[in-house]
């Protein structure tokens, strides 16, 4: 970011900025209202009431009851708690888990760890759009299945899964259904009652709330063990002094996101579609994820013959912040497991570019990205030995 002052942030699936009104609401709980909610005196009561109000706001946002909301340190903790908590509390009934092959690592690595502890895991395949088939869920259920965990919307390709259908199947079979809804909450309408969701993970910083905050919705019928042992906080299920400013910020950000959801999703869908259509004008480019059934903020395209990290480095020089599924951008040097599960060949996965827009994104940002990306793709294609002659300039 040296030769251009303009900054276009298109990585909102990674994190989002806090809304100013959220910051304002949080500050008093870092300064004058610093009391520990577990204490007896007046300033503690202010904290206690703020946490209770936040709990109501979160519950209302997803159609839950207040006492079904448990605050955590974020999406990763919520996922770990939901999955390990259910498995340890119900292993007398069975040791089989059903999940998908495109989960976030907070879910997939947790499942892999549980396999080492003796649990069995079925990783469901997805179609080329990254969709899980409810039929596959149904046919994978065994007598000893104790948990189904399928993400609400995918973080890389934005595909929205058939959660209500999976929820119905799980409920009919009496199996606990957890969904990692970190990318979906605040972006698409969610009702845990209607969708038969037993547990749902959410993360504050994905909807313009603070980092290090999250929640797990735990339906009344769910039996699960704590992950954090200690004090009596969160109805004795999640020990540790409450992150009061964080909880206040998360709840307000969520309430605002849900209140503006319809309007904002219409605006973002318009920008998303223009961005997608513009990028797909580049020859030998492909859209990843579902063409319609996807998050309003997610664009994921691959450009053949070039590699994603190079694209990101050049975009960064132009002030554009984005993401890729290329192996070269991961510490493991493994290409995206999500794009791979969609059946995309490894050599093409390397050229993927994810742009996730947000509240800050303007029409001018889209114009700018549509001007810069084709230039960068061309520059890298001219450099690549794979590029056919007709695509060189």
């Amino acid at each position, binding site marked *: 970011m040296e030769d251009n002052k303009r900054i276009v942030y298109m990585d909102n699936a990674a994190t989002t900025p806090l809304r100013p009104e959220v910051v304002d609401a949080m500050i008093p709980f870092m300064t004058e209202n610093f009391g520990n909610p577990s204490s007896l005196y007046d300033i503690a009561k202010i904290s206690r009431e703020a946490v209770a109000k936040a709990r109501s706001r979160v519950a209302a946002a997803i159609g839950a009851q207040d006492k079904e909301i448990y605050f955590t340190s974020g999406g990763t903790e919520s996922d770990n708690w939901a999955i390990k908590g259910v498995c340890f509390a119900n292993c007398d009934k069975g040791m089989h888990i059903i999940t998908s092959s495109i989960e976030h690592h907070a879910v997939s690595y947790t499942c892999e760890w549980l396999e080492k502890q003796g649990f069995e895991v079925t990783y469901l395949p997805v179609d080329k759009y990254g969709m899980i088939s409810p039929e596959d869920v149904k046919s994978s259920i065994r007598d000893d299945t104790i948990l189904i965990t399928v993400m609400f919307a995918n973080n890389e390709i934005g595909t929205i899964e058939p959660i209500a259908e999976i929820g119905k199947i799980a409920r009919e079979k009496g199996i606990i259904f957890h969904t990692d809804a970190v990318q979906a909450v605040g972006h698409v309408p969610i009702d845990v009652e209607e969708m038969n969701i037993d547990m749902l993970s959410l993360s504050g910083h994905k909807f313009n709330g603070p980092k290090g905050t999250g929640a797990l919705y735990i339906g009344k019928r769910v039996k699960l063990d704590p992950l954090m042992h200690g004090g009596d906080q969160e109805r004795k299920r999640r020990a540790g002094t409450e992150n009061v400013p964080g909880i206040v910020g998360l709840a307000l950000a969520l309430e605002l996101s849900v209140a503006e959801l319809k309007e904002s999703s219409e605006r973002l869908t318009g920008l998303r579609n223009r961005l997608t259509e513009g990028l797909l004008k580049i020859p030998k480019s492909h859209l990843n994820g579902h063409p319609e059934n996807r998050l309003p903020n997610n664009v994921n395209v691959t450009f053949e013959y070039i590699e994603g990290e190079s694209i990101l480095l050049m975009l960064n020089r132009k002030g554009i912040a984005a993401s890729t599924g*290329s192996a070269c*951008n991961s510490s493991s*040097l493994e290409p995206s497991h999500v794009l791979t599960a969609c059946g995309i060949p490894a*050599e093409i996965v390397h050229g993927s570019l994810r742009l996730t827009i947000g509240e800050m994104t303007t029409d001018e940002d889209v114009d700018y990205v549509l001007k810069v990306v084709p230039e960068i793709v061309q520059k890298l294609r001219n450099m690549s030995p794979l590029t056919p002659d007709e695509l060189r300039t």
Partner: protein
Amino acid sequence: MKLDYSNKVMDHFENPRNQGTIENADGIGEEGNPQCGDIMKIYIRVLDNRISDVKFQTFGCGAAIASSSMATELIKGKTLEEAWELSNKAVVSALEGLPPQKVHCSVLAEDAIHKAINDYRVKQGLIPWEEKAGKEPHHH
């Protein structure tokens, strides 16, 4: 986003030296594969046993492109024997370091140069030189 690249790497990534091809090159070497996410192709022109010109084409990350650019600069004008001796470590040090997971990109450059030199030797009816034992593999 890998921002832990040195200024030298970023300079060679953004302003690659010797990028392109040589028509009727005296030797061509290609290393890597698209599944791994990096391919380097080196073209050499040889005059009086010296590399009088060299070009590269690379599909890969910032480190792969910068390694190609730096490696071609380091062998330009050198005798074939000198060019053969260019190690990946020399490329890394000329680039003022590479992140550990990116060192294989420099190995790719060394290997592609060796292939180009041997391609030239075979075309000249000479016996290809043998790789030293115990070299780092470039594949992940």
